[in-house]
């Protein structure tokens, strides 16, 4: 586990089947992170990650050989300390939900700027979750009070009012710092809320989530 504020930039492996994308991401990240390996498909990714044991894997959702979720399924049991941040051009709900439920700590789209991406990597390396506005929108949609929760609605299947508030601000384009300022809470608290939402997103049995996941054969 990387200690928060630990020494050196986070060590990162880039997994994407397009070499141009890997090169571009590497350039954008610059010195903010240390890129220790690259891979272009699932098998290669498993080999590279096992060999380099990075802090964070930047993972494309669509990959030859099974997709990003498959990489997580094969790595996570052996190396639970490796964290995954999904990076994709796809905005499709099932892609986002599938990858998050496989175990990714966040989801950002490729239109993200370099500094924002570096910040997201640092956050994931520190064990926090990273939500793009769109992912926050999905969460609000899936957990919305209008949609029926399962009969056995547990704490997992519902967002607390505070969590909903945080998600709403993220969906409006607020950075964590701005969310904290707006709600008069600390950044740490914002991170706690976001991590709690991530956990619900991964473990909830809400119909909308399980359906998306089941469509893709994960779960």
């Amino acid at each position, binding site marked *: 586990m990387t200690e928060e504020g630990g020494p050196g930039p986070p060590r990162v492996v880039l997994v994407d089947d397009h070499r141009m994308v890997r090169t571009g991401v590497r350039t954008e990240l610059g010195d903010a992170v240390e890129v220790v390996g690259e891979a272009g498909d699932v098998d290669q990714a498993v080999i590279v990650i096992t060999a380099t044991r990075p802090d964070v894997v930047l993972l494309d959702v669509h990959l030859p050989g099974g997709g990003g979720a498959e990489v997580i399924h094969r790595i996570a049991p052996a190396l639970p300390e490796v964290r995954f941040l999904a990076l994709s051009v*796809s*905005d*499709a709900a099932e892609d986002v939900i599938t990858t998050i439920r496989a175990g990714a700590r966040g989801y950002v789209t490729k*239109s993200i*700027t370099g500094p*924002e991406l570096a910040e997201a990597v640092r956050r994931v390396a520190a064990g926090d979750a990273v939500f793009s*506005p*769109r992912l*926050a*929108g999905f969460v*609000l*949609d899936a957990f*919305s009070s*209008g949609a029926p929760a399962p009969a056995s609605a547990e704490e997992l299947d519902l967002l607390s009012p505070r969590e909903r508030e945080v998600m*709403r601000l993220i*969906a*409006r*384009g*607020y950075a964590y710092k701005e969310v904290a300022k707006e709600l008069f809470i600390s950044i740490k608290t914002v991170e706690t809320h976001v991590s709690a939402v991530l956990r619900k997103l991964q473990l909830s049995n809400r119909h909308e989530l399980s359906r998306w996941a089941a469509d893709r054969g994960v779960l």
Partner: protein
Amino acid sequence: MTALPAPPAPARPPRPPLRRAVDGRWVAGVARGLALHLGVDPWVIRGAFVLAAFSGAGVIAYAAFWAVVPLDAEPSRSPTQPRGLRPVPYGAMERSAPPPDAGAGEDRRDLIGLLGLAAVSVGVLLLLRQAGLEVAGALVPFVVAATGVAVLWRLADDAQRHRVVEATAGLAHPAGEGAPRWAGWARLLLGVALLVVGAVVFFASRGGIGAATTAVLAVLVALAGLLVVAGPWLYRLVRELADERAERIRSQERADVAAHVHDSVLQTLALIQRRSDDPREVVRLARAEERALRQWLYQPAAERSDSISVALDRLAAEVEDDHGGALDVVCVGDALVDEPLEALLQAAREAMVNAAKYAAAKGPVSVYAEVEPGEVSVYIRDRGPGFEPAAIPPDRMGVRESIIGRVERAGGRAEVRTSPGEGCEVRLSMPRGEEAP
């Protein structure tokens, strides 16, 4: 052989190859096919066949033609028009070859066809008698049975032709062509029934009802045996057809995707290369193409065109096209647009325009809409330079009139939050009368 002088007439348009006709035929299309080939009236040939039948030779000739000359795969258009692609290449025919004989005269022609078949059968029997076989006592059952055989044979012909047409034109949905299939089954049943009736009557007239029962059993056993032998082959045939069909659908889809990529992505890439000296234009082109492609890939087709989420996406696209910049729209929940919501959307559009104009350089503009049972809210947030709200000159109508005033007149609330260096967020909300959908 009688009716076959066939001296090639000089200086005629290219002669259609010899094929048995599919449309306009009465029995097996031999006479009409010959007529088309020779360029004479079908009735001449038919008459010749009938005359020749009295000697038996006409029947033999007809049967020989039936057996040897292939069925035309394509309905003829006119007697003189050249036809005939030998083995019809896949995809060479028009996509929807109409089922032949589909006209109103179908029933009548089937009846006449049956009579024709019976006539041919009579001819065969006469021939047999000439050859010394005494079958006169059993003439009727033999005619019936022989007609049954002829019907079955013609059915096999048609099935084969159907196969060619199906494989070529892709009309193979079992449910999709009720009439031809139904007719095929009817003919099959008719043929088998005629055969069985013929056999029963024959044996009953010879050896009593016991022999008839035995004969029927024998026929049934033979049919079952045939099914066992031919079953696997039939099954494979059906499978092959299904595979072919699936392959055709796949290649059709590939062609569609290729066409789309060519018309959109490749064109835009070419444009971008030509405009590479204008970064703003390049971004605009790339963004517009990205939007179109996403729409094509991810948008569910059934979405209502008059819902808030669709309208917001469309407005954002227009603003991007007109003013550059990138607008990320996130929508939670959805509702149909009514009049107050239209005002809300127009105000949101103004806010988006401002954000795109003044703040797009500092990263994407976030547009967030949330539909709740009692209220619809839209937030437009940018990370631009921001401004001092009090410092807006009164003559700047943009924010005051077209955003705040518009929403408030429609019964909603509008608020602009900004300060220098902090970006800007426009918050709009509109109460809703009806319940959420």
